[in-house]
């Protein structure tokens, strides 16, 4: 095998190891299955009647589903933060680094397993979404393009969580990432139309990448005009990856050189 094939194989072995944990840790399994379902149901039935929608949306379920899936994507990587900080603390990172594996394999294995988990979340959430009345106004290609953008955006946030997990000294502080993501998702077009917000917040929400990605998914799945949202979503995601991945990689080298 070539070095590249080895790198791919190392990454997959480690990704498989990360995924094996999920069904064995009930709390994690719940956060990828029950929790998204709960959020969909709560938002649809609690907020659904109270939010005034722009006329192009049939009902709140149609408006909500793209936004809530985007939020879930951003949170999907939290298991990477927890996992990396545990692996550091328990000496597993040292073990991996003493093995003849590709340098990139540990972080790549983590973030790639997040993609699989995020895909699981999308399937579960959209299944529930369809049950509570969401309707796709899209062909298969548009649906898949939406899924692709969601996974790419989620992948970018996985690198953010990787950075957190390597910086924070414990699993608890790794979850400090939530302090960043929660305000970002709520101050966006994900759950309510930004024009219902106060002026300053509205300006922030309109510039927020969470709005861009949410509006891109709405455009693709609900047959709405996309403007620049679809390609800007890709630009935001790739941009985040280009900034966060090298930061995480450098943090990884430093964290393991102690």
């Amino acid at each position, binding site marked *: *095998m070539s070095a590249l094939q*080895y790198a791919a*194989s*190392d990454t997959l*072995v*480690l990704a498989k*190891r990360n995924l*094996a*944990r999920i069904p*064995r*840790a009930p709390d994690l399994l719940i956060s990828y299955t029950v929790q998204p379902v709960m959020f969909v149901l709560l938002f649809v039935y609690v907020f659904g009647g109270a939010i005034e929608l722009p006329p192009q949306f049939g009902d709140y379920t149609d408006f909500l589903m793209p936004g809530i899936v985007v939020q879930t994507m951003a949170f999907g990587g939290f298991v990477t933060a927890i996992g990396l900080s545990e692996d550091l603390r*328990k*000496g*597993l990172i*040292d*073990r*991996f*680094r*003493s*093995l*003849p*594996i590709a340098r990139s394999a540990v972080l790549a294995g983590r973030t790639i397993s997040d993609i699989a988990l995020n895909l699981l979340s999308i399937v579960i959430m959209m299944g529930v979404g369809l049950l509570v009345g969401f309707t796709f106004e899209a062909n298969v290609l548009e649906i898949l393009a939406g899924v692709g953008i969601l996974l790419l955006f989620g992948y970018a946030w996985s690198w953010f969580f990787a950075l957190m997990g390597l910086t924070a000294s414990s699993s608890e502080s790794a979850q400090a990432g939530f302090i960043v993501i929660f305000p970002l998702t709520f101050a966006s077009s994900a759950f309510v139309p930004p024009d219902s917000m106060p002026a300053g917040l509205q300006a922030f929400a309109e510039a927020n990448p969470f709005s861009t990605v949410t509006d891109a998914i709405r455009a693709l799945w609900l047959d709405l005009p996309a403007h620049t949202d679809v390609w800007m979503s890709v630009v935001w995601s790739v941009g985040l990856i280009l900034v966060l991945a090298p930061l995480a990689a450098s943090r990884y080298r430093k964290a*393991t*050189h*102690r």
Partner: protein
Amino acid sequence: MSSDYAVEAEGLVKSYGDVKALAGVDLRAPAGSVLGLLGPNGAGKTTAVRILTTLLPPDSGSARVAGLDVVADATALRSQIGLAGQYAAVDENLTGAENLEMVGRLYHLGKAKSRERARELLERFELDEATDRLARTYSGGMRRRLDLAAALVAAPPVIFLDEPTTGLDPRSRANLLETIEGRVAEGTTVLLTTQTLDEADRLADSISVIDHGKVIAEGTSDELKARVGGERLEVTLTEGSQQEQAIEALVPLAEERPACENGILKLPMRDGAGGIAEAVRRLDQAGAGIEDIALRRPTLDDVFIALTGRAAEHEQREGEEREPAEEVAA
């Protein structure tokens, strides 16, 4: 540098800020031998192991393991070494078999071979009952054994064991030491760190004593013991026994004339004097009744007192120099 050595380090220096973890360490272990690194907490043992296993680049100095430079040839070197660190680095959410198979795959042994090695090692480490149980259900001793098994998956020519018996109960400890001896018998070179002279004594062909980032003594365990003063016999006589007669009886076994402190006879034993059995026989012949008799082996503290004039200070904090503890030396 000669390639006869499986581990060879020269002038290793590593600092963390103002703290010098290693201040110029030289180490040598011939292929197929066991080198023991003996020293208290914070002496620099773990730092040395981390450098030799490519986890940490040295600030200066150089080291070769299995003929490969730890910095320049780090990638190639990693397939030649196995590491069992201070923490049992096993994935608690994988089974014993999955843990070892994963490590085998990461050594690039291939799927079938990894599975085969995992089965072999689980059996050898008496973990075959627990093969398909998650490692989080394992006891401390079982985790340690699994960790050591992981270091051996690729049957590497050189293995590094950083305080492998810390926290083990005596039975697990004995099992682990036996396993290590088995590996050595098959030609593996082992570098082992430990805080107990006993363990270094049992396993190591040569011992390097490390303190404050420097090797302060090296040699075989006999050589070190000679500097420490070897084993001491302590005898408590039954009431009414003739102390003088007992002392006379023991003189031929002792390095120096036995002394009596608080009713306990203490004497440094001569090498090859026949040990405790010979002492009992002589005391018996002299008509001295024995209340209690024990052979005290030199401890790490004894080594440190002999070499540095102070106790090993196991929990000493940075910057907190303690006075040489007289009560320990007594």
